[in-house]
């Protein structure tokens, strides 16, 4: 970095960052632009996207008649279910690994860490058969349960609780709090920054997950957004056109933006509290 505020190093770095941001943003802007064009015009060529007329008709169509709302709801239920499930389970497991003594604890913790190294692909057939046997396909449970096994969440919360000063808990015990109350009132609120991080990543990963819902949700009523939007892409010729497709994509990403903006505040608050 340059020594001065406006040194050549700084200008070069800013330019590089701006270029990178542009490259990242271009597909998103392209999507947005296409979603604002009428399907008829786009049939003539996507080059027309750079010039008016623009229209909101594609968005109106979504609100009028589209399965998108159902998929949106499915995605929301599944993503929130997985997120809260992972937060609850990872926190409890993390507390257990960090603070309780029980036989086999370290071995079990290592087994959990091994879970990080097992790719989903290697277990998908077994999982598919298991869920078939339990009749869990095409249910919310079928979409949520696999996401609850979150070795990374357990690892993250274990490390986070381990790093917390033990004296805080001891002070709470001396204050007459039970183990659970200590966990609930002292440790959990203090782990909010880690919860926010884990929550965002879990939510985003689940929201964007495509493969497992594609396998498990075969009934179009149970499609999540990713599967649903992709299914309209596949029979592209019969859909209402490219503009409508892009409008669906934009619409699908709005919830993610909202969630990110909300949680980001928690992250910033958590970081600044830790620094204080």
């Amino acid at each position, binding site marked *: 970095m340059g020594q001065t505020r406006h040194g050549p190093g700084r200008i070069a770095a800013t330019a590089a960052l701006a270029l990178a941001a542009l490259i990242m943003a271009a597909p998103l802007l392209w999507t947005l632009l296409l979603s604002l064009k009428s399907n008829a015009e786009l049939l003539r060529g996507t080059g027309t996207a750079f010039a008016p007329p623009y229209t909101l008709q594609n968005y109106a169509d979504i609100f009028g008649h589209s399965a998108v709302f159902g998929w949106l709801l499915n995605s929301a239920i599944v993503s929130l279910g997985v997120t809260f499930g992972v937060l609850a389970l990872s926190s409890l497991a993390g507390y257990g690994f960090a603070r309780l003594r029980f036989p086999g604890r370290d071995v079990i913790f290592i087994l959990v860490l091994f879970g990080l190294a097992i790719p989903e692909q290697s277990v998908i057939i077994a999982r598919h058969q298991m869920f078939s046997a339990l009749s869990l396909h095409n249910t919310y449970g079928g979409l949520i349960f696999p996401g609850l096994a979150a070795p990374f969440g357990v690892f993250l919360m274990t490390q986070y609780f381990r790093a917390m000063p033990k*004296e805080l808990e*001891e*002070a709470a*015990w001396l*204050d*007459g709090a039970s183990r659970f109350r200590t966990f609930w009132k*002292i440790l959990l609120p203090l782990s909010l920054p880690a919860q926010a991080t884990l929550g965002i990543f879990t939510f985003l990963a689940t929201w964007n997950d495509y493969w497992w819902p594609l396998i498990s949700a075969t009934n179009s009523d149970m499609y999540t957004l990713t599967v649903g939007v992709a299914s309209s892409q596949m029979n592209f010729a019969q859909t209402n056109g490219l503009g409508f497709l892009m409008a669906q994509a934009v619409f699908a990403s709005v919830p993610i933006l909202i969630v990110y903006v909300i949680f980001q505040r928690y992250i910033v608050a958590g970081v600044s*509290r830790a620094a*204080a």
Partner: protein
Amino acid sequence: MSGLALRNVSKRFGDTPVLDDVSLEIGADELLVVLGPSGCGKSTLLRAIAGLETIDEGQILIDGVRVDRLAPGKRGVAMVFQSYALYPHMSVRENMAFGLINIGTARAEIDRRIAQAAKMLEMEHLLGRRPSELSGGQRQRVAIGRAIVKEPKVFMFDEPLSNLDAALRSRTRQEIAGLHRRIRTAMIFVTHDQTEAMSLADRIVVMNQRRIEQIGTPLEIYASPATEFVATFVGSPAMNILPVAQATADGAFLRVALGDGTQLETSLPASAIKDGALRLGLRPEAVRLCAPGAGDTNATVEFVEFLGDKTHVHLALSRGDRVVALAAAPCTARPGDETGLVLDAAAGHLFGSDGRNLKAAPA
């Protein structure tokens, strides 16, 4: 009986003993200071009383009731941690209320106790703040306040002053003494700082290597140390220890000869003589400079510490033993000077090979 009693308490961490047969009693309104070097088991002792550590043997009683199997919150003790351990996400008021809410205290009573404690500690204006918005001294006060509102039977402090700067430390020390005068509960204060111990304590417990060496008032600890460890640990500069070459018991009093042949008469009756190597302990104030040849022995001045109101003169005796003498300021001694020394052995102590003071009653 009221107050706290420990009976033959022992504690091991795995194979490592940390407390070895510790017994002591604290009156219901007594301020007891536990003094000892780092690692001797002071914190473990407090934590055992609080219930944060289990004990392997012995009993702990509060007001005559055994508590050593009770949960920490059920013992009626409060502890101020060295790190204060304030709940970072709660306001000062919430910090103080937490312990009371947990035991189901009525809202009005909680408010009353917090108001009272806040007034006593002059921190009413801090009640709405978070711990991160407080200075070190203020956090300390909140930690004390959080303990006071519980109205515990035993109040414990684990080195509460070690995170404060020197000026604040001495002020807080006085405040804790004042606090104890006002609330009159049993208090245990752990420190490795002898000044803190001397100035605060009703009685001092001196610990070394997981055992209690001596329990006594500050004066008893200073004037009649039970062991060589206590003698050298308390007092600054430390007591001079000189090996005794020979002890003779032919007169009324025990006489000792130092390595360089210096003959000294102690205040111990001749009958107190003991087998094994003896060591003579002399506080710096019992060692005085005089003209060469005019005292009990001669020594060479090694260096001189001028401290304003007094001077410490470090000396080497002819056989290589070193002593520190307390001299009035100003003192004219210069490094390399030959000087005479008066060794007031009658004011000194004799320690046997087991480290015990021959003057003290046999343990």
